[in-house]
Each structure stands twice: as structure tokens, then as C-alpha cells.
């Protein structure tokens, strides 16, 4: 005899209604997020806020003005490290910075900056290459709370050991500790690192091109998107890059299946580092235009 089973159909209806409420009431569109991770996060929200069901969560989302902030925090789960995947930062240092150095002004867009670990890693990279004074980094996220945290640059001290190791593996020239001060259980990054970073609200699902970048970094964001949204986002990156500009994705993400793949050449396919072709392809894809 089969055991009584969770009602998958009912849960799907509740999830669809929750997503619709979030979109219609608050303008946040999660309808093109990949479902497996989304349902897991929504269930965590239900559990964390003792809602009992997704429907109860939806009710609070619709009727309690302050609840949106908690929902967005729960749905964005910003987890990262400084110099995460050190070989990627080594490759940026070796292959991309020398090309960036040829521009009088350098524009970089980091999409989905979460708590800022990666954007500060970039700033350190540029600083050590002597390029930071003529660089500007746009660090964007759709989660205002994450942006706030990113600007503060304060992190748990327990993370510092791993990050220091990453930094050295990535070819760091000093000690990571020279970029932060430690106090009690926290480290605070040197505020000077912030001087060429603009933190801004940008939603990859709904917003458009806003800069002409020489490098776009977007790592471990696309894995949460459905295929059509991945394709749209990659086209958005293509349109945001100068010809010959670089694109850096997460180690498990791929450009290969997207229509815009024809517009790029791999610099290091294993590290998901690509370069926009200098010549346009016969048909550039314009989902994001």
C-alpha cells in the first residue's frame, strides 16, 4: 500500500499563486526562475515564518507591508566567498587585466553582487594591477538588503581564513589581511576599496542595458534561471559589452546552449571566461534589445 503522499499538484498551484502575487503586487518576477531551487526556498520561507502553507505565506505577502523584505531575502540567498574559484581570478589577472589596461577608462559590471565578496575581490585585483584609479565597477543586485550589506563590507571573521587562502591561490601579491581590519567576530574591508564601485538596484529579469562594459562578471546567478531567462540575460550581457569585452560566468554555467554563443569566443572554456567577438555574427540575437 502506498503511504499517504504530499499533494504535489496542490503545492504547485500554491506556488504559482505566490509567484503571481509577488509579481502583481510587488513587481518582482520569479516566474522564469528554475522551479527546483525556487520551491525549496519558498518552503524554507514557509518554515522560517511558521506559515504552515505557501498560501499563508502569500496572504502575509499581500497584507503585511514589511513582509516583502523578508521574502526577497529568503528568495535571493546571497552566498559567496572572496576570490571564490581562485583559478578564475588568476585567469582574470593574467588574460583580462592586460587587455583592460589598454583602455583609458575601464568599466566593469558585476551582475548579482550579493554581499559584495566578489566585487571587492575585483577591486583588489585592479588595485594590485595599478588599474583601479581608471576603473569603475557597477555592482548590481535586485535585493536591496544585500546591496546594503555589500556597501558595508562587513563579514564574519570565520570566513577570513578561507578567503585568505583563495586570495593567495589567485595570485594575490600581499596578505588579504592588509585589506581589512578585524574586530571581535567580524572583519571590515578597507573602505577605500569602495571608492570606484557604484552599488545599484538592477533586476536581470526586467531591467535593461545601462552601461558599456569591458568586463561583465555574473557567477552562479544563471543556474537559478530557466533556459529562456538565461538566454535573455546572456543577450543582455552581450549588448552591455564592448566588442572584444570579456564575460565571466560561474564554473558550472555555460554559454554553449544560448543563441548568443555565436557572438563569443572562449578564452578559457573550463573557467567559463569568454570574449565578445570583434566582428558581429551574421545574425546577432536580440532578445534583450
Amino acid at each position: 500500500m502506498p503511504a499517504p503522499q504530499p499533494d504535489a499538484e496542490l503545492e504547485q498551484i500554491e506556488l504559482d499563486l505566490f509567484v503571481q502575487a509577488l509579481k502583481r503586487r510587488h513587481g518582482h518576477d520569479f516566474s522564469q526562475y528554475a522551479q527546483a531551487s525556487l520551491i525549496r526556498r519558498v518552503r524554507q520561507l514557509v518554515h522560517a515564518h511558521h506559515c504552515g502553507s505557501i498560501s499563508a505565506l502569500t496572504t502575509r505577502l499581500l497584507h503585511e507591508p514589511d513582509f516583502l523584505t523578508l521574502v526577497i531575502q529568503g528568495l535571493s540567498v546571497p552566498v559567496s566567498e572572496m576570490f571564490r574559484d581562485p583559478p578564475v581570478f588568476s585567469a582574470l589577472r593574467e588574460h583580462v587585466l592586460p587587455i583592460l589596461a589598454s583602455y583609458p577608462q575601464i568599466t566593469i559590471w558585476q551582475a548579482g553582487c550579493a554581499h559584495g565578496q566578489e566585487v571587492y575581490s575585483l577591486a583588489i585585483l585592479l588595485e594590485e594591477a595599478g588599474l583601479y584609479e581608471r576603473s569603475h565597477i557597477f555592482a548590481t543586485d535586485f535585493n536591496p538588503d544585500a546591496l546594503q550589506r555589500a556597501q558595508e563590507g562587513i563579514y564574519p571573521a570565520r570566513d577570513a581564513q578561507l578567503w585568505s587562502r583563495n586570495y593567495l591561490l589567485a595570485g594575490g601579491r600581499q596578505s588579504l589581511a592588509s585589506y581589512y581590519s578585524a574586530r571581535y567576530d567580524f572583519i571590515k574591508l578597507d573602505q577605500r576599496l569602495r571608492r570606484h564601485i557604484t552599488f545599484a538596484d538592477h533586476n536581470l529579469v526586467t531591467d535593461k542595458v545601462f552601461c558599456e562594459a569591458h568586463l561583465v562578471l555574473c557567477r552562479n546567478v544563471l543556474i537559478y534561471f530557466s533556459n529562456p531567462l538565461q538566454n535573455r540575460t546572456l543577450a543582455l550581457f552581450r549588448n552591455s559589452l564592448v566588442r572584444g569585452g570579456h564575460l565571466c560566468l560561474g564554473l558550472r554555467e555555460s554559454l554553449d546552449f544560448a543563441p548568443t554563443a555565436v557572438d563569443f569566443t572562449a578564452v578559457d572554456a573550463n573557467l567559463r571566461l569568454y570574449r565578445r567577438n570583434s566582428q558581429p555574427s551574421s545574425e546577432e540575437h536580440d532578445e534583450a534589445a
Partner: protein
Amino acid sequence: MRRPEAIVIGCSKGGFNALKLLLGALDPQLPQTVLVCCHTASGAGVLAGLLAAHSALPVIEVGERQPASPGIVHVAPGGYHLLLEHDRHFALSVDEPVCFSRPSIDVLFGSAADTYHAALIGVVLTGANRDGADGLGQIRAHGGIAVVQAPVSAEAATMPQAALDIAGADYCLPLEQIAPLLNRLCLT
């Protein structure tokens, strides 16, 4: 009873040796999709390569958006949670570790239960933490079959013991009897 469509296996400390033995004793004709989550310091690419030398079925490391294919052992990549979409394609996530682990067995088991419902067998092998116990509970809640390595026979007893305590099991067997059980459940 509905014939299982997938087998999902979780292990940690001692897991590589256990997987070698188990995968080596599976029937090469198994038509089920096999999913493996093993906490390991080395990358899954390394693990998949090593296991392939011992497995009766082909072993691959999972890539994002790949389909979960019948008759193939899919190994979760290191550093990412592995999940399944309803269309039986894989998805990855860097959400926070569960039980200090990413990939987490709980995450994979839970997602597999959402996808395969009762047509799933969950297997918890040797390991030194309690990851997998909640996931096995979800598999049972969906009507799937729970198999746990007998803790006394495990290199590390914590994981199978936690699974027994929290989820319970339909079968609790020494390692060498698990592959024959799976062959029987899957081929008859």
C-alpha cells in the same frame, strides 16, 4: 507496486569504498536512473572518474541542464547542491550548505522525491554526519523505498544511524546485500 524509475544514493566518510562495491555489483542492465551524492574533498569529476573504473553502469559527473538518463550513474559536482526539475533535467544551486555539506544529500533526496514520487529508492550508506536523514524521510513520505546500510557494517555509522532514527527504513542491510536488493527491486 510501481516499478522504481530512479535510485538515489547518499554517503560521506567511507563513501568511495562503499560506492565502488555497490556500483560494481549492480546489474549492467538496470534501466533506472542512478543519482549519487558523496561528500568529498576532491572534485566530483575526480570521483566520477574513479568510480567509473568500478561501476557496472556508465558514470558521469552532472552538468547543469543535463537530462537525468536511464541506465547511467550521475554524480553530484562538488561545491553545488544538485536538484532535479520536473522535466527530469538537473539544476544546480549554491544555496547555503546543509549539514555543513554542499552538495547535500538532503537536498538531492528531497528534490528527487518531488520528481519521482513513489517510483524512487533512496539509499543511505556510510557517513560521519546526519545529512540524508531528512531527505530519506521525504522519500518515504512520497511512498518511495528507503534502504539504509546497517550501521554496524558501515565505516562510519553516524549517517546510516541518523537515517534509521529519523526516517526509518524499509530495508536495513550490510553493504554487500544492498546491490542484490536493488537489482531485485528494479528488474522484477
